[in-house]
């Protein structure tokens, strides 16, 4: 016997959560783009998508975010923090890879300095994940040792029922349990079996990749030049990545007043490591692509014990020149010993 949520009761859940003070965000297709956005009814949701084009990271680490307002006076500086709003949010219908992405980034944002902007949003969010019963040619969660039903980063895990009429419901955290309270009368007990999760092929050997990357000789390997020849140096892969987290601080305003903002930055950009002197330690696209791969599968793991990739495959799916992590890691897997 498990608890289930029937699809035809989803609107009741939305009403219950909204009256409990949550805003509900779900996958939607708006202005020809799939992403997470606020909904008021289940009809607005696009739950059949394998994956939204944008990630839920956007709602925790926005592409541009005001940090402080400032005003420079004659003898002092007035400043005012601009923290994100307090509202509680439910993210309904998240995919396991996107939910994992949040958990992967938590240690980074909480490391030497606790990033209030990230954690305020994290603390006020409940992640309701739906296990995947479909995948596409780019999904690679199993290659990074996650799965189409990974619980990582999720507060509630829903498994689609065999009949397609609802989901088996499992709370995974206190926040998840608390979220189920206002809908306890909507959930039912049932013996309905969940549908099998999709089988996602393992596309590369991540252990071999990590071993090769950790070998100092690999850093200067000709491999990087060859694999990144066609990279055009845009930031599409990094900006669509659920774990990429680099940012740049910019002051916007005039000489005396302005807003300090945290803006996404990308290691793919030529400007990313440009020094004031004009010297750029990563002055070619191959050194930038190497940085991206090394950061995700070597340095990040060294610091936080986890790879900075949740296997969503967006980097390849959306790449203008059909590059991506999968191809590079497959090529490393196939390197002669």
């Amino acid at each position: 016997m498990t608890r289930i949520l029937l699809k035809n009761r989803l609107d009741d859940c939305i009403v219950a959560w909204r009256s409990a003070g949550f805003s509900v965000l779900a996958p939607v297709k708006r202005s020809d783009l799939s992403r997470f956005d606020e909904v008021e009814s289940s009809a607005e949701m696009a739950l059949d998508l394998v994956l939204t084009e944008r990630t839920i990271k956007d709602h925790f680490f926005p592409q541009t975010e005001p940090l402080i307002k400032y005003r420079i006076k004659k003898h002092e500086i007035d400043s005012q923090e601009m923290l994100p709003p307090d509202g509680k949010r439910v993210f309904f219908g998240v995919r396991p890879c996107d939910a994992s992405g949040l958990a992967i980034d938590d240690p980074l944002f909480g490391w030497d300095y606790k990033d209030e902007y990230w954690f305020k949003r994290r603390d006020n969010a409940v992640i309701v994940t739906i296990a995947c019963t479909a995948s596409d040619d780019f999904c690679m969660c199993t290659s990074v040792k996650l799965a189409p039903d990974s619980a990582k980063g999720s507060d509630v895990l829903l498994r689609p029922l065999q009949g397609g009429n609802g989901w088996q419901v499992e709370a995974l955290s206190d926040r998840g349990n608390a979220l189920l309270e206002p809908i306890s009368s909507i959930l039912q007990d049932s013996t309905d079996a969940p549908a099998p999760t999709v089988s996602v092929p393992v596309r590369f050997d991540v252990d071999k990749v990590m071993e090769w990357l950790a070998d100092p000789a690999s850093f200067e390997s000709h491999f990087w030049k060859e694999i990144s020849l066609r990279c055009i140096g845009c930031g599409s892969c990094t900006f669509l990545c659920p774990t990429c987290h680099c940012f740049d601080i910019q002051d916007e305003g005039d000489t005396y007043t302005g807003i300090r903002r945290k803006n996404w930055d990308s290691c793919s950009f030529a400007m990313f490591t440009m020094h004031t002197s004009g010297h750029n330690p990563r002055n070619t696209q191959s050194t930038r692509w190497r940085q991206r791969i090394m950061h995700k599968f070597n340095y990040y793991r060294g610091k936080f014990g986890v790879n900075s990739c949740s296997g969503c495959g967006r980097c390849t799916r959306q790449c203008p020149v059909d590059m991506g992590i999968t191809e590079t890691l497959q090529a490393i897997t196939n390197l002669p010993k």
Partner: protein
Amino acid sequence: MGLQEQYRSEAAGLLSSGAVKLVIGYSAGSTPDRRRPVFVRTPEEAERLVLDGACVANLSTYLVTEGLLSDGKSVALFLKPDGVRSVNILAAEAQVNPEQVVIFGFEIENGQVKPLEGRKASDFTPVIEAAKTAGLSPELQKESERLDQMSASERFEFWKEQFAKCIKCYACRQVCPMCYCRRCIVDVNQPQWVNTSSHTLGNFEWNIVRAFHLAGRCVACGGCDRSCPVNIPLRLINHRMAKEVLDAFDYYAGESTDQKPVLATFRQDDPETFIL
């Protein structure tokens, strides 16, 4: 022998004779319907070249890779007429010496590739003239007219909604053969002329800068539109610019290697309707 095999063997020949140092073409991609750019340097590697109806990317963007042509050696590449037009513009703007560019020309008609005669940019002038006579894309014109019929405020709302999606990944810039500035104006930061923030204002700034700089230079290859990860219909902006210069100055970008850039030249009889 199909066109793919013919070009493969010709590419291998050019490489083995040393006539070119590199062939930029298409190869199989990560899924059966995808093609990706490939850089072929040895005759043996020519086997990797693929040519079919899925080969749509304008590869001329790689010609402006820093240092690629600085040794004076030649490069061969697979180009549709739009790509040849890009080469013409790059030559006219003194970015590329067309003598260093060998072209494997092709067209896609109903999903099938057709060969185009010639190996030098100037050989394709008749094809480009015919394209100019045939006019701008009727599909784009139709889409564009829908926008023209809106009121100014409706149109502004339309673009605001579209630009709000922009994440400033600059895929549109990076994929474009016309965006060859070593340091784009939006990356100039001493001072920072253009906001780096990807808020609606910053996104407007970027997209307007991009549109202005492509007026009379865009060849409608569609690369930016296909590359945009957030599906902004950039084709409509480019089309409008192309239509403006065609109607006002009978100017079709990339007709020849010595065509003067439309915004850098004038004729005595140019219309002056914009002067009040």
